[in-house]
């Protein structure tokens, strides 16, 4: 498995650390309902198909990445830097 880091280019999977679902980027407001916090912290989909999750390029450029991949075919569909998203660090 290889991921194409937006800064470093195509790299081996061993350079990356897996963090978890993309849901971690969508933190509820502090006063959000308990259900929203429950969903944020604990409730995850387990799709057979396309999923999006967070990876960290710890042996490379230290970027956080959102990886879109297919759990059935193992295709990597997209790799984006979290910092490049709206609201990410400039």
């Amino acid at each position: 498995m290889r991921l194409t880091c937006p800064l470093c280019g195509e790299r081996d999977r061993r350079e990356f650390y897996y963090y978890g679902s993309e849901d971690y980027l969508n933190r509820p407001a502090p006063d959000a309902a308990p259900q929203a916090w429950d969903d944020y912290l604990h409730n995850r989909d387990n799709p057979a198909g396309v999923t999006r999750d967070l990876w960290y390029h710890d042996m490379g450029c230290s970027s956080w990445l959102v990886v879109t991949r297919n759990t059935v075919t193992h295709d990597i569909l997209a790799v984006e830097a979290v910092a490049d998203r709206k609201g990410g660090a400039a």
Partner: protein
Amino acid sequence: MPELIAKSALAGHAPVTRLQTTLAEGSAAPITSVAPYPGRMDRVNAALAPLGLAFPAPNGQTRQGAARLIWTGRDQAFLIGAPAPDGLADHAALTDQTDGWAILTLTGPVAEATLMRPVPLDLRLGAFPPLRTVRAPLNHMQAILTRTAPDAFEIMVFRSMARTAWGELTEALEVLAARAQTA
């Protein structure tokens, strides 16, 4: 305060030569990490202009005389060989890294083949030309790797891993030398 003796990370390691390729300790001082604050890249480049340098693109470096600025990660570069210019600290986070890194050089005809054992990248000249600088694993170590010439590389690792890096590169050289003998 007694006078202390400063030692380099690999003091006492004599250069190792196999197949006309030499592993040796390099030197680079001072080293300053430059991490521009968001949206300040123009001002960072203005502050660097007196040195003749500009903030490098990913996987690259800029150099002027003995001073060079090498890319070391997202929005981060190391300024080597010159002190930070006046005004830079207003627009970028600066930290002194001078004693934090061990520097190794590998020079010779099999330097490329040696490094491609512990580093999982295509380091052939066409894919990895001179003055390219990347962050890459050297086995388990988070190294900064630069091709300084067609047959020469500079490898920087955390100072705490200096002897491990030395040992693993020596081993890779020995393996290539042994294979050359039996071939």
